[in-house]
């Protein structure tokens, strides 16, 4: 439940079209940049691994508040960088939608939410590490921040779209959605903490994976440049 994936048919048709368009635009830009910068087999493989991790970890039921599931989007962002992170968000959403976790029609909206989580987590992590934070607090903070950003964006998307078939005024809808976002912020903290432990562990056991982080970061910024 860490990521409220909006249910199928929740939005009116115009909103569905809008988010699909924006989502497609985002992926288009990402694909263009990656193609321009070139990509190695190894990086594709890493993206596949990160996507699979994010997808598989969803199977683990974490017994907090009646059970939450994670997507590790923050971790994915930190490990794979913003560009691959966005692609992974798309891919994971496609597979999730096929298994009833998310929505086919809202792939655009959900991809925007998850991509923003990965991207924010990545840049927050870079910044915090740049400020000489330790790996653990930096990754915990970054993941929490990223996931919170995602939750807020999700709330905004719902409020802008309005719920299909609801006559509720936007103001009241905003109140309801605010409650939902608040709950998600709590989940963001749990997942942020776990992400922190995982990144710390990876950094201690396989320092070269941190090297991988660096290398990918460089590759990504080269692509961006």
């Amino acid at each position, binding site marked *: 439940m860490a990521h*409220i994936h909006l249910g*199928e048919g*929740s939005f009116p048709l115009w909103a569905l079209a809008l988010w699909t368009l924006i989502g497609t635009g985002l992926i288009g830009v990402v694909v263009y940049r990656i193609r321009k910068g070139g990509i190695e087999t190894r990086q*594709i493989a890493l993206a596949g*691994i990160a*996507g699979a991790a994010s997808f598989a970890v969803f199977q683990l039921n974490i017994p907090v508040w009646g059970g939450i599931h994670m997507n590790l989007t923050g971790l994915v962002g930190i490990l794979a960088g913003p560009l691959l992170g966005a692609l992974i968000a798309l891919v994971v959403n496609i597979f999730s939608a096929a298994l009833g976790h998310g929505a086919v029609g809202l792939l655009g909206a959900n991809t925007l939410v998850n991509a923003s989580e990965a991207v924010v987590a990545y840049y927050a992590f870079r910044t915090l590490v740049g400020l000489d934070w330790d790996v653990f607090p930096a990754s915990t903070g970054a993941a929490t921040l990223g996931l919170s950003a995602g939750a807020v964006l999700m709330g905004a998307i719902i409020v802008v779209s309005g719920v299909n078939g609801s006559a509720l005024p936007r103001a009241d809808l905003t109140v309801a959605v605010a409650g*939902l976002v608040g709950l998600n912020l709590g989940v963001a903290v749990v997942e942020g903490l776990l992400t922190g432990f995982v990144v710390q*562990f990876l950094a201690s056991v396989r320092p070269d*994976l941190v090297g991988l982080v660096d290398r990918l970061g460089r590759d990504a910024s080269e692509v961006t440049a």
Partner: protein
Amino acid sequence: MLSNHVPDPRLVTAYAERRDGPLHHVNPWTKLGVVGALVLAVTVVDRAAVLAGLYAVVLLVYVTAGLPAGRLLRWYTVPMLFIVSVAGPLAFLEPGTPIGGALATPLGDVSVTVAGLVLFLELGFRSLTVVTFTLAAAMTTRYSDVAYVLGRVLPRPVDQVALLTYRFTFVMIETLEDLVKAAVARGGNLSEFWSNKRLYARILGMTMLSAIERAERLVKSMEARGYDGDLTLYGDVPRPPVHETLLVGGSYAAVLGYAAITTGVVL
């Protein structure tokens, strides 16, 4: 241990490869087309009764395809959670006639309204209709066909990432499952999160680590069999036969027609 509220991709694949149900023989493109039509339908249809009927039809398709109904109920948990978290509050907030007695709270009277209940049901039917069909499609379309369709629909390099994600998911799940098993076999307790958060972190960390390494080896072994960054799309999903094409075209026409009529009526 692992959640049984989430479909296990291995189980889904096992059903898909069985190829013994009627839906197994339907062309994958047709199934994809129907998913699109259903998404469109649940978005534009705004009557609870029609939505309920649509859901009933899809459920019937699921059951006649020979797929497990009991599991489906458990798999509904996650989509229902999404519905409850969005539509739950709305059921109370929606303006309209309250059902039963109102509950007095400091914020004023709170109760589920008829409109709220209807909205809740509508959202439920919308979501479950598509979920049920995509699950049915996933459980009746073989791996190579899924891979082919993904490769056709997605642009480079998204298709490659998707194909590898698909493959590595199995590795990840196995790794995760093995580690959970090993931890539990030595008395590890996964029932209380806060006092075991380090264990969770360790399991996740080890999962990442071993899966990364397993996946690295997997890439090596794929390269040893001629892989060079391009997962060849083997098999070939032919175009759907005429009657299936007509079915898909028909369903889009029906949805659009319905939308036109209802909109016309509204206008």
